[in-house]
């Protein structure tokens, strides 16, 4: 596939605009956030065309946007952000993706690296035994049909009530770990069949648990509020709604594919299939998507519980004594109704509810925002950015500029640069394993091929992505972590 040849011009610091007259059907401009060097890579594939395609969807508010970790997806680009009016706007499963509410959780600890280093191998071995991983993996949590329906409505609160989390965790989760409007009746029996045995499982692909050490602090005040400091050991968990979410996406793409002709919507890409937000199809998808999102929050809560168990076993102290508190939990793939100030039809600022789609993007609300929990409201919401297993990860904080420009959104990770097969041609998993271990990173992964697919060289430079997000003032760096232990799904 050759590079993208459409028109694009720089319109500000790390801002690149695709004009609304680039192609027939565009209702607004495209806006890509990226540094000067990064934009060349971005133009090498068809991700900008996908930004332009999203600009064709009915009822879009503001620009069709892409964060600095943009890469070619299907339907929406990965890194895509778009908002739609409740009246006349649409909702699209292709704007959320298959892994609904794939996201990140960060646990902090009172442990310093010198305390953990002698036991890191034992810790990773214990977690490899304790966290079910792999395709279709089943967990030890046995759910009745009623349990599953309860999870689909209450999300993380169900897991906390059953003893898989701490009550104080809930205040540290986006949406407190449950999206309103979920309806188990909107979720198919097939999706429920996939979801019932999988709660508390990591999955495969790019899902992981990583033990990390904070190696740099950029904002001491915000880091202190988040409970983070230099030399401290933290744990990142990356997983989502597992087969249940995949099936919800599959089911509703089919529904939306039929709805497109019913509602006379013209699309440049069939994967952008959508329905009006105020239609039966649109409402039903939102109810099912919210249910899957709630499953994902419950899943990450249970996974965090397995992490806490492993730490307690290996260090001979309870998770509470080790200070393994939740810092935050963010969704990467989701559609949500949020209040934002946008340009009204008369051109003046107007506060309204819009449906924000984030596909491979993170909410990044600033200090003072009412949706940020009281614990962090004075400084802003933590944004968790995984790099890749060979390099660094970050905690950022949301900004006012993001709220004003991107519906409070920023990047979600490094973003892929190479296809999985291209990565495997460049590096053998067995060699990569040796390289990582030579650098003191303990790797637990059953598959060398799977390891190679997620090799650091397959991803963009996370430092450049985070730097672009900061230069664009979409988020600011708080701390940087380096990996010391990787458990890959």
């Amino acid at each position, binding site marked *: 596939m050759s590079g993208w040849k459409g028109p694009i011009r720089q319109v500000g610091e790390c801002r690149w605009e695709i004009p609304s007259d680039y192609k027939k059907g565009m209702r607004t401009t495209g806006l890509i956030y990226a540094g000067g060097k990064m934009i060349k890579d971005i133009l090498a*594939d068809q*991700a900008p065309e996908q930004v332009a395609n999203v600009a064709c969807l009915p009822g879009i508010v503001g620009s069709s946007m892409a964060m600095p970790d943009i*890469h*070619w*997806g*299907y*339907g929406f680009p*990965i890194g895509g952000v778009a908002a739609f009016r409740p009246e006349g706007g649409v909702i699209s499963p*292709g704007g959320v*993706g*298959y*892994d609904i509410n794939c996201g990140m959780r960060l646990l902090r600890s009172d442990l310093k690296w010198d305390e953990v280093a002698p036991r890191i191998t034992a810790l990773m071995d214990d977690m490899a035994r304790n966290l079910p991983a*792999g*395709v*279709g993996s089943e967990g030890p949590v046995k759910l009745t049909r009623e349990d599953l329906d309860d999870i689909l409505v209450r999300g993380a609160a169900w897991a906390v009530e059953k003893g898989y989390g701490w009550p104080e965790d809930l205040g540290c989760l986006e949406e407190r770990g449950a999206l309103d409007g979920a309806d188990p009746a909107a979720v198919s029996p*097939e999706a429920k*069949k*996939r979801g019932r045995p999988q709660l508390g499982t990591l*999955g*495969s*692909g790019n899902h992981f648990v990583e033990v990390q050490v904070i190696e740099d602090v950029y904002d001491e005040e915000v880091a202190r509020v988040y409970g983070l400091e230099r030399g401290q050991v933290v744990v990142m968990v990356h997983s989502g709604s597992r*087969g249940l979410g*995949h*099936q919800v*996406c*599959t089911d509703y*793409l*089919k529904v939306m*594919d*039929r709805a497109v002709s019913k509602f006379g919507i013209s699309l440049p*890409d*069939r*994967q952008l*299939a959508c329905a009006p937000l105020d239609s039966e199809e649109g409402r039903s998808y939102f109810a099912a998507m919210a249910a899957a999102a709630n499953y994902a929050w419950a899943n990450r809560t249970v996974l965090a519980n397995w992490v806490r168990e492993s730490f307690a076993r290996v260090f001979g102290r309870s998770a509470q004594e080790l200070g393994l508190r939740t810092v935050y939990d963010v969704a990467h793939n989701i559609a949500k109704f949020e209040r934002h100030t946008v340009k009204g039809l008369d051109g003046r600022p107007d506060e309204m509810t819009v449906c924000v789609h984030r596909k491979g993007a993170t909410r990044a609300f600033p200090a003072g925002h009412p949706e940020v929990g009281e614990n962090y409201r004075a400084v802003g919401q933590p944004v968790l950015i995984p790099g890749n297993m060979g390099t660094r990860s970050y905690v950022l904080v949301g900004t006012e500029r993001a709220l004003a420009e991107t519906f409070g959104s920023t990047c979600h990770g490094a973003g*892929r*640069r*190479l*296809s*999985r*097969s*291209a990565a*495997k*041609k460049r*590096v*053998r*998993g*067995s*060699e990569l*394993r040796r390289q990582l271990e030579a650098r003191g990173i303990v790797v637990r*992964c*059953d*598959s*060398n*091929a*799977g*390891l*190679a697919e997620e090799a650091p060289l397959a991803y963009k430079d996370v430092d450049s992505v985070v730097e672009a997000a900061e230069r664009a003032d979409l988020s600011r760096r708080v701390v940087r972590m380096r990996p010391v232990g990787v458990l890959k799904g």
Partner: protein
Amino acid sequence: MRLFEHTADVGLDVRGETPEDLLRWAAEGLRRVWLPDLRESGEDGHGAEGDARAAAAEPEAAAGTLPVDISGAPDLESLLIDWLNFLIFTLETEGVYPVGFDLDASCAEDGSWTLRGTVRVSRLPAARPVVAVKGATYHGLAVEPAEGGGLQARVILDI
């Protein structure tokens, strides 16, 4: 049938003499994504114990047959997506993958497609890591007449 690269995902280019043939080759492509040949996957088989165990574990015996009954697809492209998603669902819930097919695809007067028949399946090798496929997408989806006869299709899988 061949696999092609996509930045985050993988695509299938498939040819078949008939719709049934096309669907059979698409299923074979899906199997190759799930269970890539160890040499093709860039591994030497001497690295992680998981991959080495896998090499010794194959092949597995046939586990049985599953009925196929897919209806209401508005076009052949949709039938292809429904078929692949049926196989993805079956792999995850039953732990089996397809190895043989007895399929009958038919097109009704209103243009809608139905697929009926059976698929012979094998159980996934216990020790073999399987590449996850989340779903078959409509992105860039095409089924069209092939040069020289028959049909060709292109479909991208989300992995």
